[in-house]
């Protein structure tokens, strides 16, 4: 048993994190930047950071992930990384020819005090940015927040550095995507189309990280939000931010800069969150909900009713990122399941408050911790004390699932050992139905496996 050392007794730890339920900011910024068309993410730090982020994203998507690095040396860390960044900008535009370079910092460049705003301005003043090309940036120190924070910071950078207000409103709405998969972003666009509204979705990694096999290695696949779309986001009627941690900061920035009003919603995972999403679109865009959507909803509710007997009272442990955990917990409660333990390595008072509120109302006994030392070791200890029937989380959950011999559903980031997440959505009514199917399969497969011969049922 790989986790044989996990003790049942929970002791307060002051320094140590064991088996983290988060990673650092820059990878989030890199992922977000891949959602801009023609953009090459650039990591301003040591070579290893860029390499690790690319490897992790490659393992998660099974796709080539392109990003450049400032390749810091000892000299750069003494004298500052400006020379490296300026040289990098030259090299990148000359050789890799992106439309945009999206620079993010690292713990190293932040600690030595590199100012990306000043440096990118200098690059512009020195004429290093060709006509019609762009360099945007986001400050993403690894010692603050988590990968989700880095994602939010880069998305905010897109809003503040591209959005323009021409004074003439366009008949369109912004949907600011919280951290979700390419499949989910594709589904958001489909739903908007079905609802009959024009949207600017940013970032948008569909057709970037789920590109088809073509016999070519394309540096800049066809997907991604375009610069024109990003610019026009300042003229949109309103923004819908999906996720208070990963998307709302960009909406706030856009309101500040271009006076685009916004509403923050959960990522539409599960019935209730999708209901709110659809109703919000309906309200803000003054459109009625088309029958297609209502029918999709009806199908989801139908399965929820058909199968409720297999779900009630089932105990679940889950870990992951705030914007996914909130609607997922709500969905589990709607299914009459019991979220017993919830852990997120991402810190944040807002999330803490929202989750507490949900749990206080509907599941006060749930163990919940976020931030420092909210790691998988703690979750595993909790599971040893109060066992569960199902575990939901990213790939790293497989150790706990194996050791405790409990069904496991992969959900979140990263998923290194299965495919599907980039192709099939987990959001909207259809995506929630898929998630429900997975939950049912996990539970019912286990029931079949463990059933005594005389109780082994054909019809379930």
């Amino acid at each position, binding site marked *: 048993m790989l986790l044989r050392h996990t003790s049942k007794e929970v002791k307060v730890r*002051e320094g140590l994190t064991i088996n983290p339920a988060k990673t650092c900011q820059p990878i989030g910024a890199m992922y977000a930047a891949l959602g801009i068309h023609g953009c090459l993410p650039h990591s301003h730090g*040591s070579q290893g950071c860029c390499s690790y982020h690319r490897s992790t994203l490659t393992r998660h998507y099974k796709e080539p992930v392109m990003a450049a*690095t400032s390749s*810091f*040396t000892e000299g750069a860390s003494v004298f500052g990384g400006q020379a490296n960044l300026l040289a990098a900008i030259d090299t990148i535009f000359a050789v890799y020819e992106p439309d945009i370079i999206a620079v993010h910092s690292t*713990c190293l460049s932040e600690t030595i005090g590199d100012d990306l705003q000043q440096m990118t301005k200098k690059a512009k003043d020195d004429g290093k940015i060709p006509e019609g090309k762009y360099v945007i940036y986001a400050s993403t120190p*690894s010692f603050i927040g988590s990968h989700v924070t880095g994602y939010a910071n880069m998305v905010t950078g897109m809003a503040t550095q591209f959005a323009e207000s021409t004074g003439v409103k366009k008949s369109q709405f912004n949907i600011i995507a919280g951290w979700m998969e390419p499949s989910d972003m594709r589904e958001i666009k489909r739903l908007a189309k079905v609802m009959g509204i024009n949207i600017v979705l940013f970032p948008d990694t569909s057709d970037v990280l789920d590109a088809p096999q073509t016999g070519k290695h394309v540096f800049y696949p066809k997907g991604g939000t375009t610069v024109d779309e990003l610019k026009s986001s300042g003229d949109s009627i309103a923004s819908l931010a999906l996720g208070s941690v990963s998307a709302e900061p960009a909406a706030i920035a856009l309101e500040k800069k271009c006076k685009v009003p916004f509403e923050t919603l959960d990522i539409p995972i599960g019935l209730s969150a999708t209901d709110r999403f659809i109703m919000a679109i309906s309200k803000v865009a003054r459109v009625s909900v088309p029958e297609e959507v209502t029918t999709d909803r009806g199908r989801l509710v139908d399965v929820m009713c058909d199968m409720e007997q297999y779900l009630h009272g089932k105990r679940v442990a889950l870990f992951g990122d705030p914007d996914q955990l909130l609607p997922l917990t709500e969905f589990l409660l709607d299914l009459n399941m019991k979220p017993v333990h919830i852990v997120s390595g991402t810190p944040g008072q807002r999330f803490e408050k929202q989750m507490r509120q949900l749990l206080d109302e509907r599941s006060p006994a749930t163990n919940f911790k976020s931030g420092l030392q909210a790691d998988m070791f703690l979750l595993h200890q909790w599971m040893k004390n109060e066992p569960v029937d199902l575990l939901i989380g990213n790939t*790293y959950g497989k150790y706990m699932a194996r050791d405790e011999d409990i069904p496991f559903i992969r959900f979140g980031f990263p998923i290194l050992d299965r495919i599907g997440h980039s192709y099939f959505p987990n959001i909207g009514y259809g995506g929630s139905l898929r998630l429900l199917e997975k939950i049912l399969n996990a539970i019912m497969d286990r029931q079949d496996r463990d059933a005594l011969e005389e109780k082994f049922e054909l019809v379930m």
Partner: protein
Amino acid sequence: MMNDEKWCTCGACKTIGFQPRRGSIRVKGEEIPQQYFKGMAMEQIGILEGRERQVLEKNSDVAQADIACDTSSLSGSVSQRACVFCGSRVVLYPVADAIHLVHGPIGCAAYTWDIRGAVSSGPELHRLSFSTDLQEMDVIYGGEKKLYKSLIELIEQYKPKAAFIYSTCIVGLIGDDIEAVCKKVARETGIPVLPVHSEGFKGTKKDGYKAACHALMKLIGTGSTEDISKYSINILGEFNLAGEAWIIRQYYEKMGIEVVATLTGDGRIDAVRRAHGATLNVVQCSGSMTWLAKEMEEKYGIPYIRVSYFGIEDMSKSLYDVAVKFPDRPDIMEAAKQIVSEEVKTLYPSLQKFKKALTGKKAAIYVGGAFKTFSLIKALRSIGMSVVLAGSQTGNQDDYARLKEMCDEGTVIVDDSNPVELSKFILEKGADLLIGGVKERPIAFKLGIGFCDHNHERKIPLAGFIGMYNFALEVYQSVMSPVWQFAPRKGGSL
């Protein structure tokens, strides 16, 4: 603005949308006379400015300059390389009964959590992820206290045989005295607590190997060498990916040789501590462990030899080369011959099916260390394949000279390559297979060619005689897969 003027004549550039540079070639701003590059690749291929000297197309008709290597990557390149920390982490990672604490923000620990299939026959502490998860306040006020507390908590919880503390970029900047903390904790807990100076920016991955070896050197010599046979070796630079060290160890043991320590595959602290008792060091993966072998030679007078366990030829040689070192025991050589003859007798016929199918197919190799490239070229030749691209992330001058000698005319040799170059050369040279690691895999598949992971993520042992069979099978399965019928291949159509 897509006109044909923009593209070079190779055809491949246009396919992947890469615009080569024409005219003068500059290295670090200085114009280099064209004749200097005669026979180098950039006449046909576009390469990142400043990278010209790290790429070479073998041409025996002209005098060619040496390839430039051992340099840091250009700022702004999409390099496939990693950092110092990565180097240290991969070398020490397989030591299974020690804890590996990463002192820094969370990322470095998160990305290196159980990513290497270095298997252990017993404890598996190495597969967990431990971090001090440094926060902003720690960066301002220093992380020593947090490191101390973390270490005490860890050692109490896991009761390890030793602890390795990796310093990351930020620790090098905020000036934590990790030596002092380690000493204090070692004193209080009674186990070796070893700092690994692996700040990411302080060099290349190779410097990380050295930092790891430095930590190992502190352990070696602290154990008892009583009862160690005169006919004994250490296996260096073998990380037991997919259980490869077990295979190798078994061969040597069959020859009547005692294996004192494997560094670091299926590694144990107690074995490392008595490694100085061995008579000979047998070094694989030259990049990572030659430094340690040299240190041990200097300090303990243990000679070393360089070997490789990939392919029939090199695998056999690695047994003979060890046997030769024990001339007073002819039975050792006899046993080596016996093993080779038995293994080859079954292996050789089993390879013929693959050879028949693969003859004439072309391979591209881009791996971490150069030494592995040599073996792979030989192994591929033994199954009928030629090598059209050979490169590494960390090869040195000698490696590349030898590589050039080994390669066929026209083979492209690269140091520290990037995806643009790789895809371009693969297309231009018409490779059917790419051998590489995690970041190269999807590139091969997007181009519609086969792939074999010869890096951390390999799932089956590729070392030893059985490894050669596995390798041939994997290459065969991938190159000959029916899926390529449905995939547009090599930049073209179906």
